[in-house]
């Protein structure tokens, strides 16, 4: 937008804009084709499934039914047939949202300084540090989760260290708690925070930071007023990449949380698996998709408005 000319009314400019839009679409089309083929397109199948009747043993019967959507919000009590708000679903949604939010905040609190640290290394060694961040993630998610379990379990490293140091006399039960889920998800999604933040931090112009100090700003002030606003796109990208996958996380809650409490991902999986209720599973996931999408679009619209106000 930097090259936006003031002569918006000129015919030439309008033609140039049209050409740019065409170019933009051309650039985006290959990605869109793949996504429509292998992600969004098939999702239409799910949308259709959410309005069909559940098959006897998984799958669907091709008869229209709103039962799936009905069950997302309302529960018919199996004992007295009364209809009430599906509080089991609500509390599962709430737990997922709360844990994902905490995960995002923790990942940001750890990831931002780490990205900053990497971005302020000499240029030649930055890629190495970046690689060091991703190396642990070259091992498989399941094996990594099991390794975390070894670290935090009652006879694990952390408890053993704390006990031999005399800090605690009894092991702290960390495994199979919400804390373990949050810790595990933070661990698993940390690179998704560090990498985007780093990507926008790396191009940060430190002359602006220097200017801040020249104006006698404190370090905290420079951080809040100069650095964070400049790397905001990266922070936002990181938060999106951490928060949304946490919402649908499946493996970590099951292994580290001990599977005693479901999260949305597990609830949906239950419907497609042992529960044999595909329409409910489909409706739950379309609902989740809608909520997240609306929130994102609102965010994008707001940030664009904010940008336009700044730029014009």
């Amino acid at each position, binding site marked *: 937008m930097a090259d936006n000319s003031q002569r918006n009314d000129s015919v030439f400019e309008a033609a140039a804009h049209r050409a740019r839009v065409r170019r933009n679409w051309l650039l*985006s089309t290959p990605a869109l084709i*793949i996504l429509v083929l292998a*992600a969004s397109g098939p999702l239409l199948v799910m949308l259709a499934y959410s309005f069909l009747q559940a098959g006897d043993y998984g799958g669907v019967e091709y008869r229209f039914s709103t039962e799936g959507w009905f069950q997302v919000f309302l529960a018919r009590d199996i004992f007295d047939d009364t209809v009430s708000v599906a509080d089991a679903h609500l509390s599962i949604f709430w737990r997922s949202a709360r844990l994902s939010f905490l995960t995002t905040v923790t990942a940001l609190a750890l990831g931002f300084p780490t990205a900053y640290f990497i971005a302020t290394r000499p240029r030649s060694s930055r890629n190495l540090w970046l690689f060091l961040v*991703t190396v642990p993630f070259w091992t*498989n998610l399941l*094996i990594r989760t*099991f390794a975390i379990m070894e670290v935090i379990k009652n006879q694990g490293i952390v408890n053993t260290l704390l006990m031999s140091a005399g800090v605690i006399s009894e092991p702290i039960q960390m495994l199979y708690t919400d804390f373990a889920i949050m810790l595990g998800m933070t661990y698993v999604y940390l690179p998704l925070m560090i990498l985007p933040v780093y990507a*926008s931090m*790396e191009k940060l112009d430190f002359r602006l930071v220097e200017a801040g100090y020249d104006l006698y700003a404190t370090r905290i002030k420079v951080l809040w007023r100069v650095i964070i606003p400049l790397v905001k796109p990266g922070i936002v990208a990181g938060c999106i990449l951490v928060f949304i996958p946490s919402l649908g996380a499946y493996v970590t809650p099951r292994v580290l949380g001990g599977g005693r409490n479901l999260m949305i991902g597990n609830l949906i999986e239950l419907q*497609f698996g042992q529960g044999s209720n595909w329409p409910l599973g489909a409706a739950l996931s379309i609902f989740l998709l809608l909520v997240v999408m609306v929130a994102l679009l609102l965010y994008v619209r707001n940030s664009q408005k904010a940008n336009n106000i700044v730029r014009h």
Partner: protein
Amino acid sequence: MENSLSTRRNQFSVFKQPGFTIIALACFIVLYMPIVVLVVYSFNSGTSPAKWDGFSLQWYAAAWNNSAVKTATLISIIVACQASLYATILATMAAMGTTRTRPYRGQNVIYALVNQPLMVPEIVTAVALLICFAVIKELTDYRGLAYLVLSHTAFCIPFAYLPIRARLEGMDRTLELAAADLYANSWQSFRRVTLPQLWPGILAGAMLAFVISLDDVVITEFVKAPGQDTLPTYMLGQLRRAITPEINAISTALLLISAILALFVFLLGRKHGN
């Protein structure tokens, strides 16, 4: 910190933020703690992954002799390499097409589509893909790796796209405009000016995509054709029974390979830097 800025003012570093280095180093320790456990237990002589019984290389031998593990590892890597390569290219193009431009109609649609794979739990995409691919498989009788590569590419795109977009947003355009003034065509100016500036974003995106593809369980489980078990789906099968330290050994071997790659990229980056 031998950066030109800090050498100029040697008492006061503009880079310093209180506590950041400590948090970053703590972060690295936390990141590597489980990995150390993993590596140590891969040399365990006992069968239990939870009890140390002495040093042994038996699990490396076992993994090497287990053709199922070997095949699964190979397929994992093949799919991850292809998917992350394609996803990064496509995501870079899409990022070029959606940033640094006046808002245009449909931009939000592109944005929503690109990020869509993030927004639904994998099992949903998995079941949907199963149904769609089944039709194609039946019609064409083709059951190669292309299905896995295609579906991995699709869900890797947003992971590659977001860092690249973050890098592009507000990237200084002066150089590009200068290039245009010098009559460089748009490919030349992309190749010579934009790409070098964009490279860290692309690298970050590609690494994310690779890691995400390597980790995927659920979609792979539903899309895979006969003989296409990846390491994660192989482990999923073991989950109910017993996970042997073979997996630790394979993971350690993979780590070693990636460490070598890291060194390679580091040396390459150093050459570029000079």
